């Protein structure tokens, strides 16, 4: 089990799959849980997963072939049909839109003669959109064959089009394209720490696991992924649960649109993350840990593997860590492949097991029945960093930072309409207005706190404070000034949820796509009061009957913008109380074309 067995791949659009497939399969065939990782490698190697490769994998792993199709089709970066030698995906978060990604995509489609979502006839490329790639502070961004490209502009698009036309391998493209900045604008507890790697592990060597847990409990540390579950309680429950093995999982599937602080932590503070995981392993008694890294951040793999190796070489990972007999722990990195839902911890565990990322029924919870049904502590990247600081400072000093119910600091990913987008670290309790001032936002109309599943707040609420008492947040902070149309913001988010719904439960599978259709109808100028009623009805069903948080929060963008910015909807409505669900005259276009008619009877007016 070599955690660094994953190479960096996806550089070359054309490789000899037949030569590599055996090697890839051989490397993974021992573990059925590696199916997703295996498919990701095949995808990277061949540009898609050919039917005969799927059959070969199924036969070698002794699993039903349908499972391969089932798993592969769940993840949007995996393809079962050729999707082009170059697969271009424009990040389509609202912040990319505000920076002009739609025009750029149109420009590229025109330049290369392709339609969005379709593979070019010569099989050279496809152009499509993808959910937020976590580059909101340096967008518009795109992925080409899985590689992140930031700061797109008309000139760069032109160049990329040329490189694709010339079939230049992505690995040979100018390095500057792939540059990802940290944009740390304000450091604090975490980002300004001066710890040497391994320092806290060494310093807490004498502590019993129970003492680590009690320090974390006393420090009042709560999860930074958004839900805010007390970390100490989680670790304790995991430690006390019955099981043959225990696992530590770091959730780096940072998919919430507008959030990119985990990317920066993994870039600038990888040691702190791994140190936190190792401390957690010691506390709960785990021998194995996973970092589940979203596919969009695959470019971080080399760096992360290097850090892991250095830690192994320094006795901070592996067997008998720091010479302590029986303290064995190592970390494996698993990649995601384009599925926001895998940020939900039980879906993440399913994905780690190589399955479709469908959230489990809960209870039981991962602390008792997690990875392979064993006790598992799943925590956010930032939570592990905070845990290290809490253990380093001691509970009282840590608790002194922040507010009564929200100890410590919080990394905020600021993007949108402001002078200095990037990462800001504050003690909990900072006001929205303070952040707006610090990032140079003017004429702000609204802030989306904690991403689409969070809250949209208007100007009269800018004195509210970030923290579990008032505005809980996973870290996204998207700023909209008074030139922005809040209806379009909500519509972008509604599209996002429809695209990311796993489809398991009826309300979310059907409801999110119907919500999308209704929002599109309103956007096209065909909305009526009747449609607003339908939106409210769908919201209610989603909120009350959905299986997991995705469905239950999918209506938040609409609910919040309807509350604060109702005129943005109402100005779009027709005064009538009903409008057809589709474009009536447009529905006659085919028949007109076939009959050559264009008389008055060959048209339908909007009203008569």
């Amino acid at each position: 089990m070599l955690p660094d067995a994953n190479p960096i791949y996806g550089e070359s659009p054309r490789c000899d799959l037949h030569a590599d497939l055996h090697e890839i399969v051989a490397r993974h065939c021992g573990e059925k849980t590696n199916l997703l990782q295996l498919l990701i490698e095949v995808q990277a190697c061949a540009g898609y997963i050919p039917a005969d490769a799927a059959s070969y994998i199924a036969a070698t792993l002794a699993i039903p072939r349908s499972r391969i199709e089932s798993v592969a089709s769940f993840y949007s970066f995996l393809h079962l049909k050729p999707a082009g030698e170059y697969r271009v995906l424009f990040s389509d978060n609202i912040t990319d839109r505000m920076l002009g990604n739609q025009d750029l995509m149109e420009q590229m489609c025109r330049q290369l003669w392709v339609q969005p979502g379709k593979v070019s006839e010569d099989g050279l490329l496809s152009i499509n959109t993808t959910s937020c790639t976590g580059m909101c502070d340096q967008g518009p961004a795109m992925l080409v064959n899985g590689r992140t490209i930031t700061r797109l502009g008309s000139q760069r698009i032109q160049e990329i089009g040329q490189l694709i036309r010339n079939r230049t391998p992505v690995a040979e493209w100018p390095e500057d394209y792939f540059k990802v900045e940290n944009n740390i604008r304000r450091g604090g507890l975490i980002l300004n720490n001066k710890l040497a790697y391994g320092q806290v592990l060494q310093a807490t060597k004498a502590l019993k696991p129970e003492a680590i847990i009690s320090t974390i409990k006393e420090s009042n540390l709560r999860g930074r992924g958004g839900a805010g579950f007390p970390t100490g309680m989680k670790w304790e429950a995991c430690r006390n649960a019955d099981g043959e093995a225990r696992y530590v999982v770091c959730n780096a599937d940072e998919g919430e649109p507008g959030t990119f602080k985990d990317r920066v932590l993994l870039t600038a503070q990888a040691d702190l993350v791994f140190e936190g995981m190792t401390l957690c392993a010691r506390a709960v008694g785990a021998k194995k840990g996973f970092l589940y890294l979203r596919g969009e951040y695959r470019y971080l793999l080399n760096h992360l593997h290097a850090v892991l190796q250095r830690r192994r070489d320094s006795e901070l990972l592996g067997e008998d860590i720091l010479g302590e007999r029986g303290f064995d722990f190592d970390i494996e990195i698993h990649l995601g492949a384009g599925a926001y839902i895998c940020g939900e911890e039980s879906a993440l565990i399913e994905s780690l097991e190589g399955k479709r990322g469908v959230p489990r029924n809960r209870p039981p919870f991962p602390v008792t029945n997690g990875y392979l049904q064993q006790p598992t502590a799943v925590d956010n990247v930032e939570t592990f960093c905070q845990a290290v600081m809490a253990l380093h400072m001691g509970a009282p000093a840590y608790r002194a930072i922040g507010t009564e119910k929200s100890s410590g600091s919080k990394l905020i990913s600021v993007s949108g309409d402001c002078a200095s987008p990037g990462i800001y670290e504050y003690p909990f309790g900072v006001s929205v207005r303070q952040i707006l001032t610090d990032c140079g936002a003017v004429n702000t109309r609204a802030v989306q706190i904690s991403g689409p599943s969070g809250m949209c707040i208007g100007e009269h609420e800018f004195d509210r404070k970030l923290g579990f008492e008032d505005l809980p947040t996973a870290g996204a902070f998207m700023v909209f000034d008074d030139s922005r149309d809040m209806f379009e913001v909500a519509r972008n988010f509604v599209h996002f949820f429809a695209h990311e719904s796993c489809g398991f439960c009826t309300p979310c599978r059907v409801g999110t796509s119907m919500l999308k259709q209704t929002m599109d109808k309103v956007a096209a100028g065909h909305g009526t009061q009747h449609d607003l009623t339908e939106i409210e009805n769908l919201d209610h069903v989603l909120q009350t009957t959905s299986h997991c948080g995705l469905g239950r929060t999918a209506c938040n963008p609409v609910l919040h913008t309807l509350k604060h910015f109702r005129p943005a909807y109402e100005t779009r409505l027709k005064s009538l109380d009903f409008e057809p669900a589709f474009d009536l005259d447009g529905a006659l276009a085919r028949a007109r074309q076939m009959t050559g008619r264009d008389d008055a009877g060959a048209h339908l007016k909007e009203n008569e």
Partner: protein
Amino acid sequence: MTDKKKLRIATTSLAGCFGCHMSILDIDERLFPLLELVEFDRSPITDIKHCGPCDIGIVEGGICNAENVHVLREFRKNCKVLIAIGACAINGGLPAQRNHLDLSACLTEVYLTEPGLVHGHIPNDPELPLPLDKVHPLHEVVKVDYFIPGCPPSGDAIWKFLTDLISGKTPELGHGLIHYD
């Protein structure tokens, strides 16, 4: 007899088979007490060609062409309460089985490439209504107030529904009367 004003009812069949209208006739002898309460405007029963102001409009069949849209709009404009009757009006029904076919391909096959056709051409007489690219249920084109499901609904179901409605009750069919087939 008090001359309490009778309710005026209009009925029509769009992309349907008149099966629901046959079922209306299946109310049988109860048509007589019904006629004490209602009178018919536009309907195959009266042969009135256009719908005037009515209390209740009953529409069978889905929307498959431009003329269906005009008639449905006429009903919606003139009827205080609009009822969609039968599977086709409610979900497109049998005609909607063409919805996964491409309209151009349909027209081409039927009028141009079908074996045995000579001098085939796609009819383009302005008198003929143009087909929509898909068949739609009524509620996607106008607001519909009530739905009587069934293919067709039984005479008993229609009777129950209408008598509930006329007496001011929210119509309920219940087990045995409600069916979709």
